[in-house]
Structures are given as C-alpha cells and as structure tokens.
C-alpha cells in the first residue's frame, strides 16, 4: 500500500511539474520616440514577451492619448523602405516579439497633446483571449537609449 501511495505521489508531482504555465505577457523596455513638433504620428517600441506555454495573439492596441494605435512593420524591399500594417500578431509559447526602430513598431496616431522627453504614454494591448496588458512607455529622444 505504501508503495502504491508513493507511486501515486510521484505521478502527482511529475504532473505538477509539467503543468501548463499561464504566466501573463509583459513588455520589456517600452519607449516612445520623442517626436519633432507638430507630428501626427509617433512610434513606440518594446520587446513583448509571452512566458506562458500557450500561443497568444495580439489583436489590438489603444491609448487614451492617441486617436488610434496600430502595429506596423518597416520592411526593406530592394532598398526601399515600405511600411505595412499588421492587424494581428501571433506570439508563440515562450516567445518574444521585438518592436525596434527600423522594424516592427507601434504606430501612435494623432496625439491629443504634444509629447516631449520624460513624458509617459499609456498603451493598452489586447489579446484574442480577452486579456489586456497595460504599458507605461516613457518618451525618449534620439536612438532611445
């Protein structure tokens, strides 16, 4: 009986070890580039991590400070920079999506006020499972670092 119990415990422990992780996504080093005066579009960057063992789909973003927030990717084709909108982005289990200058970025459209270095931009990311992630991204000048 003792033996049966220990096997049972062993199974239970190993099952716990394999349990699916559902840690929420998080944004590493989010920031928004300080815009020249009067600009109608700003770009935001971050590394978005999905530490869970489930695939996540990023379906949208919004900000109280902007009319709209979209995802765009600056792609280079034959030396020509083209900006393409991405309506949803898939984050594989344990993966990260890099939003970097000259690449994928959050396009923050029509600011409600002027932003300068040191200001904070609130961004809400929405996922297909209904969850949301709130980010506070500082405004930085130049290369961002």
């Amino acid at each position, binding site marked *: 009986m003792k033996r049966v119990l220990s096997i049972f415990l062993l199974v239970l422990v190993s099952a716990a070890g394999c349990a699916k992780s559902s840690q929420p996504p998080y944004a590493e080093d989010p920031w928004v580039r300080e815009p020249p005066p009067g*600009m109608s579009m*700003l770009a935001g960057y971050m590394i978005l991590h999905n530490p869970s063992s489930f695939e996540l789909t990023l379906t949208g973003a919004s900000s109280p400070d902007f009319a709209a927030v979209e995802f765009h990717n600056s792609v280079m084709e034959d030396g020509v920079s083209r*900006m393409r909108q991405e309506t949803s982005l898939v984050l594989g289990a344990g993966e990260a999506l890099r939003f970097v200058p000259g690449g994928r970025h959050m396009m923050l459209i029509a600011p409600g006020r002027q932003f300068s270095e040191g200001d904070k931009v609130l961004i809400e990311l929405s996922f297909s499972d209904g969850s949301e992630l709130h980010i506070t991204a500082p405004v930085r000048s130049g290369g961002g670092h």
Partner: protein
Amino acid sequence: MGLQRILMIIGLAAMAVVAGLWLQLRMSAPAVPPETNATLLRTARPVGDVRLQDTLGNELSLQQLKGRWSLVFFGFTHCPDVCPTTLAILSQVARRLENLPQAQQPQLVFITVDPERDVPEVMKGYVEHFDKNMIGLTGELSQVEALAAQLGVAFQKVPLDQGGYSMDHSAAIFMLNPGAELNAIISAPHSVEGIAGDYRKIVEFMAEQS
C-alpha cells in the same frame, strides 16, 4: 676632373635614382579603395542641378551644397519610424565626426519625397529637432523627382486604411563630395559606427586620390 665636379655628378645620379624609385613606387602601387559597406564610386558621378527650397522657403540649388561633403537622406516628415531613426543616426554620425578638420565634416541634408505636406515651415521644425545644422529641402515635386531619378531613389505614395497616406521610399544615404557629385551610396540598415567609419575611410581615400 676636379673633385667638386665628380661629387656633383654622383649627387645628380643619386637624385635620379631616388626620383626613379619614387616614381616606380607610385606606379606599382595603385591606390586600393578602402573596405567599406558603402558602395564607393571610384569616379564621382555629377548630379544635374535641381532647384529646391530650404526651410526658410528660399530657393536652394543643389550646387549650393558645394564646398563640403554631404550626407543626403530622402524621407518624409509623416514617417514615424524609419525617417526619425535614420535622422537620429545621422545626427550622431555628425557628432562622432566632429574631430575631423572642419572642412572634412559632413553637412547633413534631408530631402522630402512628400513636398505636398512637407512645406518649408514643417521641414524647419522637423530637421531642427534632430540637428540644428541639418539642411531640410523641399520644393516642386518635379524637381524632387528629377533629383531622385538621378540618384536612383524610388518613392511612391501608399494610401493608409485610416485615411491619408504613407510613402514608400529608398532608405539609402547618398554621399556627395565637395563638388556636389555622387561619390558613395550607403545602403540600409544604418548604424552610427557603420556610417561614421565608412565616411572617414572614403573622405581620406578621396583626399589621397586628388
């Protein structure tokens, strides 16, 4: 034959040998272009003149860029990612090259491919945000197109879903020599170290050539 005369002949002969060696050295060692990521044009290509407008609305002929090396980038101010990224890089490149003699330091030039929206006043605030010495140029679309065609710059208007439009455009940086001729093309992706390093090598190499 006096000793003086013999010495003079020996002296002349020695000079001739030295001159010969020097000539041979120069001819047998053709200048090797530096290793750069930039595409260096061994023979600079003249650029036909176009008339644009500076940020104060004054007419500026491309010929007015003569006298200094120029780093020229084409973009538009409604560009949220690639243009600010590149202009921030160029501004840092200029700072990194401040230890060059003044005459060898680059002038930064930003030319809009969207003159419809980028009027001189808009250009002024935009370029000054990145570098107070950056030259911002706009003008008649036909003039911008004429210049773009000569340098191989492609650009195209792309409508956006939410209204308005974006511009697809070449991301290369063009290096014009002090004669305002195309001397090198720096392709994206850009980095401060990459551009500053190539710039130094090219300016030094072209100085040796002349």
